[in-house]
């Protein structure tokens, strides 16, 4: 099967194939086609799709539906993520499986409403109070929009934490030739349920601090408590400092690079060239400019490696460390004011590596030549 599809269409297909049964959204370019697609497709599989009165209701509906046992997704762009903010915290606190698609556009507030950008990268990580982690994965092609949507569902179901699928206008709204026979279809994994015959349900019970509690839906065989407040294993308000500490550590420790890697094997894509001292690091749509730049450089006899980061949060630090061994220069193109490069600067030894930022915020894709120029400039130290 060969089709001519865009990223948003692929995300809808991925969601349906992952078993998504609930979607709520509020129209916003460039994410609206996902809302429209889900309204078309979900009824066909017995699911529920709704245009909510605003983004707060969108994510609120999803959280409710998810806790009643449905796989749920919402999709928006930067302004909508802003309105999701408090509920993202709720989903973290209540350990709610939920896929959030962010089809980024450029700039703060309304910004360049129909144009591309990658400016939400730090925002999605730090966009809710408390500072507790989420997972964010970032496709670079229409094919990956499909597969990563399925992975996003798997990850959110397994870890019971909101998972962001980070797209952007150019990825979501550019058609591309898709050959389905060559596309990976990940195995679909569902959340772990408490056996129905268990007498008692402790909704937030975990044995080891990094375990994920077992799920039992509202309306199922058990009485369920869900709460926005710091809670004990029963979901009752906690006030003892030592217990609060454990609960908070649990939220922090239940996800990490190693655990995620088991369920999402594509956390990075490292195209290594032996003896290369230049490393290009990229993610999302910009990775595709970087791929061309690296091809061009190599065709000119230059040595350069390329690391594409697909797991943005939590930062795949050990993969980044591995990839940066031997690098004298790191070139990092981003369609923002220099955001993910901060993570790289945090991880590498800055006294040994020069970091070159390419930050383009004019809404257009970064031209591979712009990256090539930096590769040439930095060749040979």
């Amino acid at each position, binding site marked *: 099967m*060969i089709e001519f599809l865009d990223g948003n269409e692929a995300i809808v297909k991925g969601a349906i194939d992952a078993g998504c049964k*609930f979607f709520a959204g509020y129209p916003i370019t460039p994410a609206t086609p996902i809302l429209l697609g889900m309204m078309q497709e979900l009824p066909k599989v017995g699911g529920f799709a709704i245009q909510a009165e605003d983004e707060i209701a969108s994510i609120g509906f999803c959280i409710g539906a998810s806790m009643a046992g449905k796989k749920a997704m919402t999709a928006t762009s930067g302004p909508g993520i802003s309105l999701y903010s408090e509920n993202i915290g709720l989903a973290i606190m209540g350990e709610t499986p939920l896929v959030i698609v962010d089809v980024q556009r450029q700039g703060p507030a309304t910004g360049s409403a129909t144009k591309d950008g990658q400016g939400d990268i730090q925002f999605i990580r730090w966009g809710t109070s408390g500072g507790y982690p989420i997972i964010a994965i970032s496709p670079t092609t229409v094919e990956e929009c499909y597969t990563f949507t399925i992975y996003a569902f798997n990850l959110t179901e397994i870890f019971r934490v909101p998972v962001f699928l980070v797209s952007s206008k150019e990825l979501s709204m550019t058609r591309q030739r898709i050959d389905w026979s060559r596309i990976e279809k990940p195995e679909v994994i569902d959340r772990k349920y408490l056996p129905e015959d268990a007498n008692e349900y402790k909704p937030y019970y975990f044995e080891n601090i990094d375990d994920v509690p077992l799920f039992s839906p509202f309306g199922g065989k058990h009485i369920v408590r869900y709460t926005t407040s710091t809670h004990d294993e029963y979901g009752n308000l906690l006030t003892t400092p030592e217990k609060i500490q454990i609960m908070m550590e649990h939220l922090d420790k239940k996800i990490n690079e190693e655990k995620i890697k088991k369920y999402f094997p594509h956390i990075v894509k490292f195209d290594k060239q032996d003896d290369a001292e230049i490393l290009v690091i990229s993610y999302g749509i910009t990775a595709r400019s970087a791929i061309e730049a690296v091809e061009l450089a190599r065709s000119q006899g230059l040595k350069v490696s390329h690391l594409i980061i697909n797991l943005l949060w939590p930062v795949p630090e050990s993969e980044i460390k591995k990839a940066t061994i031997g690098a004298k220069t790191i070139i990092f193109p981003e369609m923002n004011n220099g955001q993910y490069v901060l993570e790289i600067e945090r991880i590498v030894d800055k006294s040994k590596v020069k970091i070159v930022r390419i930050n383009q915020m004019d809404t257009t894709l970064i031209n591979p030549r712009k990256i090539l120029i930096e590769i040439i400039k930095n060749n040979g130290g």
Partner: protein
Amino acid sequence: MAIVKNAVYMKEVELPFCPGCGHSQILPQLDKAMAKLNLDPRKTVLVTDIGCVGLSDQYFNVSAFHGLHGRSITYACGLKMANPELTVIVLMGDGGLGIGGTHFINAARRNIDITVIIFNNFNFGMTGGEHSVTTPFGGKTATTYLGNIEYPLDACSLVQAVNGGFAARSTIFDKNLADLIAEAIAFKGFSVVDVWEYCTAYYVPRNELNKEKMMKLLETYGFKTGIVHKVERKEYIESYREVYLNQPQKQVKQISLDTEFENNLTQKTEIIIAGAAGQKVKSSATVFGSSAILSGLYATQKDDYPITIMTGHSVSEIILDKKEINYTGIESPDYLIIIAPEGLAKVKRIIQSMRETSTIIIDDNLVSLLPDTKAKVEIFPFRKTANAIDRFSITILSLATFLARTNLFPIEALKKAVKLTQKEAIAEINLKAIDAGAKLVEEGAYAK
């Protein structure tokens, strides 16, 4: 004080509220109402808002969802949509009603089958007695210390305004409160009970509120008590089932764009089509891209048009290559097809950047508007020719001309894509347009 004895769903433990707090009086009535309906604790969810009222759910042996301030109705709706078997009861304060007003109005408007009980004590208890949307005019609160200068909201009228299902008002002095709550819960559709009560910590002492004064307030504002509004109309989830879930399943034909034709592409080729709203630029570009894929090529397409979609430019960018296309930006296209002045205006900068090796293919009416360019220029009577068929067919017609001129892949592929992807009536017109477009080249109707 308050330990509720002989309750059915409530735990026999002390409630956390201040002495005399109305919350402690409403909850046992809720318990009675639930008992009257014999609700299954596993199928019943108390969704609590934030505020003192938000502490309530912990005292019931039923499922509970304690969410964010003002958003309790959204979780309730989500739970209900996911599992319509649930009985979903929202307990919120007048604070929650204010901050979550839009959810209240929209849940009522949709007539979704949840019940909202407003613990209306005229101020925010939990945060220290600040005014709320229901604080009476002149009411003294922490933030209206000289008297409230705003007027109170009538929640029941709001429901009425959007024709929601059921709205009732009551007070903690009402002997029938439990029955009223039970009726609201049993109602199939959206229901609210606005219960007027005491915040003994703040509103009562600051305003010397008593039963008499509360009754007087009801009178002053003409706020009715009892069932204020009730209409039988289809519940939201039922409607969704009827209209969407049971929609007739259309047979969608799966279309695969398998390689069927040869191509003569030698390098990555970038094409821009600059037209106007109403010329079917976007959909024709998709047909064109599909035809390239039918010819064994890789293709990408992106579109640009103003938000006001029925007016102004409509520009599509297509890239063709023999291999996967990574970078999809076009700085200076190989081919630029111009079929409308709006499109031309949009691509002016591009025209100036085009190289000698590139080609502009333009409608004869627009030549005079063309700025200086290094590109070769070919002129065709697109508009005139298309108008003889159907003026909307101008884009596909011009693309056929382009194909006939460049021979990148066969015209037949374009026809096949039209047949595969378009409805018969439209396909017929487009096939005619393709023939006409190709003929323009055969006739040599171009000039340099």
